[in-house]
Each structure stands twice: as structure tokens, then as C-alpha cells.
């Protein structure tokens, strides 16, 4: 049966196989996953040492610190997303698949988010306690990160794809991608400080959700275009 005519069933099967393969690769390379995870924890724990243990100031800076650390940690892990596939030639096979590259890139981004985004979301409340954040603050932070980290992976994928095979790609991705993270940072951290001061986080969460939907629609397409340019 010629794969082109399998249509939807084919697409779903290929999508799942790409996610499976990336998750298997992540398991085989646990060290990479743990480094970005511990990087997040270490960066967050450094701030009290720099700013002083005074709970009031810590509570004040907690949202910003946790969110900036999440931004940096997810960006650190971006290299893994496409760089090794580009090097060993599997990325061009992906570009030659009968299924739309945009959706296969989405599969890779989903796997990347499961491996790097989810751990950040799970550990964030614990770190929030380090900063003496009240419960509402922790809830808002976790919810914000749950909506925000996929955006970090999605937009980060564009940066990773643009800098494939380029020397000094690590620093370059940061330069390209961090400005695009700013809206997520503003509303993510804003949500936590709003929750702590008792205001409603309704607005922040809906905006984060809007960013998520927008990047879900636009980022995979842009990453696929960037991959086609890189693989040329």
C-alpha cells in the first residue's frame, strides 16, 4: 500500500513514531535532560545568595527569578532538539517524508517539551517555597509555566532551526530567541505577582493561552521553513 494514500492514519502513525523516537533518544541521553533541569534549580537557588535571605525581598523577586531561569533552562536544552539530527542526516530524511514537515517538527517540539518543559513545571512550586511564596503564588506560577513552557519550546525551535550547523550556535540562539520570549516572561511573571497581591490572574492566563495558540499555529511552520533552508 503506497504510503501517500494512507492519509490521516499515516500521519498519526508517523507523528507518534517521531515523538517515540525522540523520547527514546532523550532516555538514552539522560545526562542532557538532567543538566537543563539542574541548571534551572541552581540558577533559581543562586539568587537568594546574591540578594540576601530577607523573605520580603525574595517574595518580591521570586516570579521574575523563576521565570527567567525557566527561559534560560529551556533555551539551554534547545540545542538537542535538532542539532544531532542535522549532523547525522536524519533531519533531511524527515524533510523528505511524505507527511508535512510542519507536523513532524511539531512532534519533535512536543517530545522536547515533555522532556524539558514538564520537569520545570513540576519542580517550580518547590522552588517557589524557597522564596516563601504563598500558595496562590505557587498555583499561578505552575499554571503559568504549564502554558508558557510550550511556547518556549515552540519559539525556541525556530531559533534552533535557523542556527543549525552554524558555529557559535549556542550563544546565537539566545540572541535570536530571548527577545521573542519577552511577552511570555512579562505575563508569566506578572501572573505570579498578581496572584501574590490578591489580584485576579484571569487576564494573564488568557494571554498566555493566546500566545500558546498563536505559536502553536505559527512556530512549527516557521521552523519547518528554517529547516528546509538549513538542509539545502
Amino acid at each position, binding site marked *: 500500500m503506497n504510503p501517500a494514500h494512507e492519509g490521516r492514519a499515516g500521519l498519526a502513525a508517523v507523528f507518534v513514531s517521531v515523538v517515540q523516537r525522540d523520547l527514546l533518544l532523550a532516555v538514552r541521553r539522560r545526562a542532557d535532560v538532567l543538566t537543563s533541569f539542574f541548571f534551572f534549580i541552581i540558577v533559581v537557588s543562586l539568587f537568594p545568595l546574591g540578594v540576601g535571605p530577607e523573605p520580603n525581598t525574595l517574595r518580591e523577586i521570586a516570579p521574575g527569578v523563576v521565570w527567567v531561569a525557566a527561559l534560560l533552562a529551556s533555551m539551554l536544552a534547545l540545542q538537542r532538539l535538532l542539532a544531532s539530527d542535522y549532523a547525522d542526516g536524519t533531519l533531511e530524511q524527515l524533510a523528505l517524508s511524505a507527511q508535512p514537515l510542519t507536523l513532524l517538527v511539531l512532534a519533535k517540539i512536543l517530545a522536547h517539551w515533555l522532556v524539558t518543559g514538564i520537569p520545570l513545571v513540576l519542580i517550580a512550586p518547590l522552588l517557589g517555597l524557597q522564596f516563601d511564596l504563598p500558595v496562590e503564588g505557587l498555583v499561578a506560577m505552575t499554571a503559568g509555566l504549564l502554558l508558557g513552557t510550550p511556547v518556549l519550546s515552540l519559539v525556541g525551535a525556530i531559533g534552533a532551526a*535557523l542556527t543549525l550547523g*552554524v558555529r557559535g550556535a549556542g550563544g*546565537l540562539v539566545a540572541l535570536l530567541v530571548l*527577545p521573542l520570549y*519577552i*511577552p511570555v516572561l512579562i505575563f508569566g511573571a506578572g501572573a505570579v505577582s498578581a496572584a501574590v497581591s490578591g489580584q485576579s490572574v484571569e487576564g494573564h492566563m488568557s494571554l498566555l493561552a493566546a500566545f500558546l495558540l498563536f505559536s502553536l499555529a505559527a512556530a512549527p511552520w516557521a521552523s519547518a521553513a*528554517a529547516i528546509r533552508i538549513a538542509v539545502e
Partner: protein
Amino acid sequence: MELNIWRFASPQVIYPIAGRMVPVFMALAALFTLAGLYIAFFVAPTDFQQGESYRIIFIHVPAAWMSMLIYLVMAFWCAVGMIMNTRLSFMMALALAPTGAFMTFIALWTGALWGKPTWGTWWVWDARLTSELILLFLYVGFMSLHAAIDDVRRADRAAGLLALVGVVNVPIIYFSVQWWNTLHQGASVSLTRAPSMASTMLAGMLVMTIAAWMYGIAMSLMRLRTIVLEREADSDWVQELFASPACGAKA
């Protein structure tokens, strides 16, 4: 008719044309700058609230507008380049980027120099200034990505795609910063919402803006010609141009 449009898209045709346009636009830029400065310093009255320090507006606002406009034009040329696959459009975008970045740099410095007397601090986290800073990062990102990729064809299209992604994000970033600014500082007085704009002030600013446009066009066309020479170095029309004993002095 179709052929003639494509004729313009070739670097070889654009090179002499741009060569003739550059002096014209440079002269216009100088003219408008002189006129603008005259209005700015000798016609516009002293501002009852800010005294003389507001005169920085005559360079700050045109530079800020110019930095935003150039980014949009740059993204436009990148889009044309990606769709029509014409190398010249990418060269145009590349010629614009440095001028845009310099304009952003001017806007930031003049903004800080204006903030000090008006608000007592060198850096004001005003929404517009903050967005200007982020715009500078986008410019620097565009230029470094292009410089980091060796293969020129790929560098053009990768940087072009980044410019398109950037131009889509600029309004989102501006909106978020605007919202963030009003939240944290309460009703902050926006830096450039100058007090009642006397007509002469407005005139001065518009003339300076036109001067900035002229300068932007002249500068980017000049850089375009250099980029064309660098890229078409081993093509035969460049060889002829520089084969003459005068060795291209007149070219």
C-alpha cells in the same frame, strides 16, 4: 513589460542607478537637516514646562520612527526575496539593517539624555524606550545570524525568515511592554508625549523626519552598492568595470 521589471532586479542594472541616486538623496538629507535644525533651535519656542531640554525631541523622535520604519522595510525586502527568490532583495535588506541599528542606538541614547533632566534618571523604563531596546536586539540578532552562516544563499534566507518572525512579534512585544509599563508604574508619563505640540515644534520634527528618511535611503543605497560589488566580485561585469587602468576610481 514583464521583462523590464526583472531587468531592474539584477544587481548589474541597479549598481549604476543607485550610484546616481546616492548623491541626490545625501544632498536632500543635508538640506532637510539644516532646515530642520533651524526650525528646532531658532523657530520653535521654549517649552513652558521642560524649558530647552525638550529640543532633544527633534532628533529622538525621527530616529525612533526611522528605526521602526527601517525594520518594516527590511522585513518587506526579506519577504520579497523569499517569495521571488531574487538575491537583490536580500542584499537590500542587508544594506538597511546597519542603518536601522544605528538609528535605534541614536534613539536610545537621546532618550536617556532626555530622561535625565526630565525624570532625573538616565534610563527610564518607558514603554517606548524599552521596545526600542528590544528592537535593537532584533537588529543585532538579524545581523549576527547573517554573519554566522558562511553560505551566502542560506544566510540570506535564514536571516530573512528571522526578520519575518521578528516583524510578526514586534507588535506583540510592544503591546506586552506597554501593558507591563502601565501596570508597574501606575499612570507613567510617557516620555515622548511631549506637552502641547506647538505647530512649529511639529513642523521641526517632520522636517527632521524627512531628513532622516533621505539619509536612510542614501546610506542603504550606498551600502547596497558595496554589497553588490562584494558578492558579484567574480562576475564579468564587475571585472570589466575594474579592468580599466583607472582601476574603478570612477565607478
